[in-house]
């Protein structure tokens, strides 16, 4: 009896996951329609670039600088073999930053900041009937609320990525100088060694995909919130957790598709 109960619970859970995936894609089909008025869409887009992008710059700057510093220090600390040239520190710092740390780690951090913000904003609008008010007026609420966020994220995440890479490399350089583990010329030589421009393209694609994932998954959980303030909090938490998981899964497949 207990086994049957467990199986039925598992089945229900799987059905819910499948139903949510279906609902997510249906939501996207409604989001990607022509905005009612381009003038209003443009205004909303600028607001979202401000909310999603510009407001995230301080946290990205802080994290990137310290992250670059730590990568450089750890690489230097682990270079025990005298056969390894000193410029390897710069080379590894650059590769780690461009390929993984800036696009993925920064996106995971932003999933927390932007994801909770988007889910709670839309979730609050749902429970206070503001979304119903939009629908009653004849506004396509998904298109009005979510599309500017998606376009804003797609436009601004690559800019934030380049900004993060730059600050991370500067952080690495500063930490090496302060710890007296390398000099500027060797570090820059390392940064420029074996440079493959395709890596930047790979990082940019990742940042666009992750930006899209964060905004759409969070909007999904916000939009389908049911209940009251407590449920807005739950949706917000779910949005962050699921966005992070989807980012990690997408990261795995993108790496396999683009690097191997």
């Amino acid at each position: 009896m207990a086994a049957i109960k467990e199986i039925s619970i598992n089945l229900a859970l799987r059905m819910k996951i499948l139903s949510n995936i279906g609902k997510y894609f249906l939501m996207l089909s409604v989001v990607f329609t022509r905005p009612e008025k381009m003038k209003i869409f443009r205004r909303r887009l600028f607001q979202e670039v401000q909310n999603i992008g510009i407001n995230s710059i301080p946290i990205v700057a802080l994290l990137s600088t310290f992250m670059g510093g730590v990568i450089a220090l750890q690489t230097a600390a682990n270079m025990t073999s005298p056969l390894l040239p000193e410029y390897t520190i710069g080379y590894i710092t650059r590769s780690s930053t461009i390929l993984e740390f800036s696009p993925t780690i920064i996106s995971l951090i932003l999933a927390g900041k932007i994801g909770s913000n988007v889910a709670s904003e839309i979730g609050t609008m749902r429970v206070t009937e503001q979304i119903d008010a939009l629908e009653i007026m004849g506004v396509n609420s998904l298109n009005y609320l979510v599309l500017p966020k998606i376009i804003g994220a797609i436009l601004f995440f690559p800019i934030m990525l380049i900004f993060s890479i730059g600050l991370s490399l500067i952080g690495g350089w500063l930490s090496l100088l302060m710890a007296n583990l390398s000099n500027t010329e060797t570090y820059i030589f390392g940064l420029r060694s074996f440079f493959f421009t395709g890596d930047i393209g790979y990082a940019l694609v990742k940042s666009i995909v992750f930006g899209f994932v964060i905004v759409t998954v969070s909007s999904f959980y916000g939009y389908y919130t049911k209940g009251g303030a407590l449920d807005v909090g739950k949706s917000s938490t779910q949005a962050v957790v699921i966005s992070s998981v989807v980012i990690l899964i997408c990261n795995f497949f993108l790496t396999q598709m683009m690097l191997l």
Partner: protein
Amino acid sequence: MIEVVNVNKSFASNQVLDNVSTKFETGKVNMIIGQSGQGKSVLAKCIVGLHEVDSGSVLYDGRDFSAMENHDRREIRKEIGMLFQGSALFDSMTVEQNVMFPLSMFTKMTKKEMQHRADFCLDRVNLLGKNKLLPAECSGGMQKRIAIARAISMKPKYLFCDEPNSGLDPMTSIVIDNLIREITYEFYITTVVISHDMNSVIEIGDNIIFIYKGQNWWSGDKKSIIQTENPEINNFVYASEFMKDIKASMQKKV
């Protein structure tokens, strides 16, 4: 006129609306009353399309709203104004921006024209001069009035009010009730009010339908609701001691 024809609605195994049919006349305040949990809000949400009906139809001046695709429904929704229970004003916008929002979305008015219309609507609800306030800076009664101003900004043909008096003091309730009645007569619109406030029913209700166990249990006007011997309605109307006393004194007079 809005016609509701044999509407059924269930949530899982719970049948909330059971073959409801009614008509809401133009130029009158049509009230949907009933106890909590009997299906009045679900009926209203089915009428405006926030819930899909399981069967039956909703006709707006003969146009079958329930059979329409989303795109066509949006055209009818532009003719609908709605006052929500919690006002549902947009937090991030000022009072004026809230009122101008539907105009900026759906009309080709210039900013000056929109401003003029917003001023007219705010003046109509006695809130002219409060244009630049945020909803959070307004009282509950003011928020309801702003929501009414927003609802009438597009000159709607149909006005829905979901418990317009909830959370308001008696004086403010009367102000809101009078406003709804005046707007209905002045602009000759079809107004549907969901309420369980008997004061409002007696004050402004032209046509009344009583929803009980998801059915259109009774319909009539405000005089007949006082006089009816229907036990379910009497339980609802004369639930308070005060109303019971009034009934007793009326019977004594008779």
